[in-house]
């Protein structure tokens, strides 16, 4: 059975939404920018900020899972690593945002280059597990390297970020910073997946053996996709540590990797709008449920199972099934 070469698309079921109709993303972006001025309270704005940070993270995951066909169970790694690198630098050296980004992104990229080299030796199930193992290693280091990470207590007291000499205050200002980065990441990834490089990734997702047979360096492309994905996840992590004014090893916990995977799958793999919708839905639902409902984790697992069995193409897949029948 394993020897059969499957020729049809083995990758994630892909929904078609968002591309070829720029009106929808544009309207969405506009809505996000004006949202805090529509009379939303501080609580809602903060919650939405968190959701949009997760959205950047989920899009970075989608590049790996939805576009390259590499399912990872350790995507908390790049995100969590960036929270530590950025948080530590901001607190110990300077909270200058451009500088913090340079430092945290360099750390994330360097670690991704090394770990990705090993992880992308394998694919499929083995890749999922190895990526989880990488994340567990980082979790252990975050717990154990007390001199820098302060162990289970976590890194606290991260100052507010500064940009061009002025402090960015929490609330609307930080929200707008997040929206800006979100739009930049969306546009950047949108561009990337339609470049020859992005097309090559999708060829690998569709059929790895065939891609290799027509001369694509599969391993190199998977490696690069891994590094880019971690890099983008790192952007989200850097924002996150400023939003929470600190970080703990729990950002590297395996359930966080599960959360981001769930957001991406719920929203729709292989689309970039999907993960954004998934992240927003996830954060608001979680907020609603954890306050009233003790069995959140059980319910979350149940929904996860049902979605994977019944709607593997997520919300975006459902939407496109109803709205754009060919």
């Amino acid at each position, binding site marked *: 059975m394993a020897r059969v070469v499957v020729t049809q698309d083995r990758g994630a079921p892909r929904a078609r939404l968002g591309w070829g109709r720029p009106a929808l993303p544009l309207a969405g972006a506009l809505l996000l920018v004006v949202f805090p001025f529509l009379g939303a309270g501080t609580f809602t704005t903060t919650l939405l900020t968190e959701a949009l940070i997760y959205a950047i993270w989920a899009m970075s995951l989608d590049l790996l899972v939805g576009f390259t066909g590499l399912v990872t169970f350790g995507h908390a790694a790049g995100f969590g690593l960036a929270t530590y690198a950025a948080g530590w630098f901001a607190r110990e050296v300077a909270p200058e945002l451009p500088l913090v980004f340079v430092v945290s992104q360099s750390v994330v990229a360097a670690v991704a280059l090394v770990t990705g080299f090993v992880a992308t030796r394998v694919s499929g*199930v083995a890749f999922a597990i190895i990526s*989880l193992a990488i994340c567990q*290693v980082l979790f252990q280091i975050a717990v154990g390297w007390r001199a820098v990470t302060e162990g289970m207590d976590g890194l606290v007291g991260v100052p507010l970020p500064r940009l061009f000499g002025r402090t960015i205050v929490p609330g609307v200002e930080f929200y707008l910073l997040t929206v800006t980065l979100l739009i930049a990441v969306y546009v950047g990834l949108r561009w990337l997946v339609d470049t020859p490089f992005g097309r090559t990734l999708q060829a690998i997702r569709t059929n790895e053996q065939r891609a290799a047979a027509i001369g694509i360096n599969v391993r190199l492309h998977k490696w690069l996709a891994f590094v880019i994905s971690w890099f983008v996840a790192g952007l989200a992590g850097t924002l996150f540590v400023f939003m929470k004014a600190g970080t703990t090893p729990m950002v590297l916990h395996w359930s966080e990797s599960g959360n981001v995977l769930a957001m991406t799958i719920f929203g729709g793999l292989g689309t970039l709008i999907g993960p954004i919708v998934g992240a927003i839905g996830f954060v608001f639902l979680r907020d609603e449920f954890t306050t009233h409902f003790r069995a959140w*984790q*059980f319910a979350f697992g149940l929904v*996860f199972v049902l979605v994977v*069995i019944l709607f593997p193409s997520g919300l975006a897949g459902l939407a496109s099934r109803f709205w754009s029948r060919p």
Partner: protein
Amino acid sequence: MDLNFLFVSALNGVIYGAFLLLTSLGLSLVFGLGRVVNFAHGALYAIGGYALLDLMRRAGFGYWPALVVAPLLVVPVAIVMERLTIFPIRRRPEIYTLLVTFGVSFMIIGAIEYLWGTGTSLIQTPAPFGGTMSVLGNQYPRYRLVAAALSLLVSAGVFAFVQLTPIGLRIRAITDDADMAEALGIDTKWLLSLVFGGAGGLAAFAGALGAPIFAVQPEMGTGILLDSFLAVILGGLGNLPGSAAGAFIVAMTKSIGGGYIADWSIALLFVVVGVVLVFRPTGILGRGRVA
């Protein structure tokens, strides 16, 4: 003195390796048989621990009878889980089984936290194996040696079952070539349910057997699940002797490394796995197939 420290670390490694052997055999069997990657294996391990706990505290069982009954309770749980979640997606790529069982493991751990709370429960070392015994001049907990011997015995039983019985023959046939086996009239669906139940029982047995050593808490299965996965990948997915070798490599690395560099031993483990995968992406005993 240093050599002695090494000896005790190695002994710890053998004990842990015996547990990993039990859990990774189950994982490997199910993978070989149905291309099912069971992320909920660690959660079944945890249920084993909690079943033991309830049998002892609420039903008044002694440790040893509970150790026998607890896995038997988990077998139907595993079979129902297979029927409800794996069966509907049997035609999809194997990565979906990993995703679905990932969700199931969230459900089980969530249910455990809901029903039993998030605390840690300790189980007293069962008689008559309390206390320590002298091993080459070291005082070593007696129960650990007994538990390791028991898991090696059960693992040997699993090997014998697969190698010597008619059902084992069918299991090997399906692992080798599922389509051909089915064409020859072997009912793969029925057998997969059965083996899934058996593997769940093995995991639960390991959880119950390890309860006096590692304590019982909702996340007790996570660490051992990851280590078993690493063992299975190291050995070559679906390859039973490979999994056995992988289990001891992982356990020894963790234990001996842990003796010297404490928290960093998991990083050392990753280095070992990395080196193996860079040179042999199919695992140590895997044959040509990159999973």
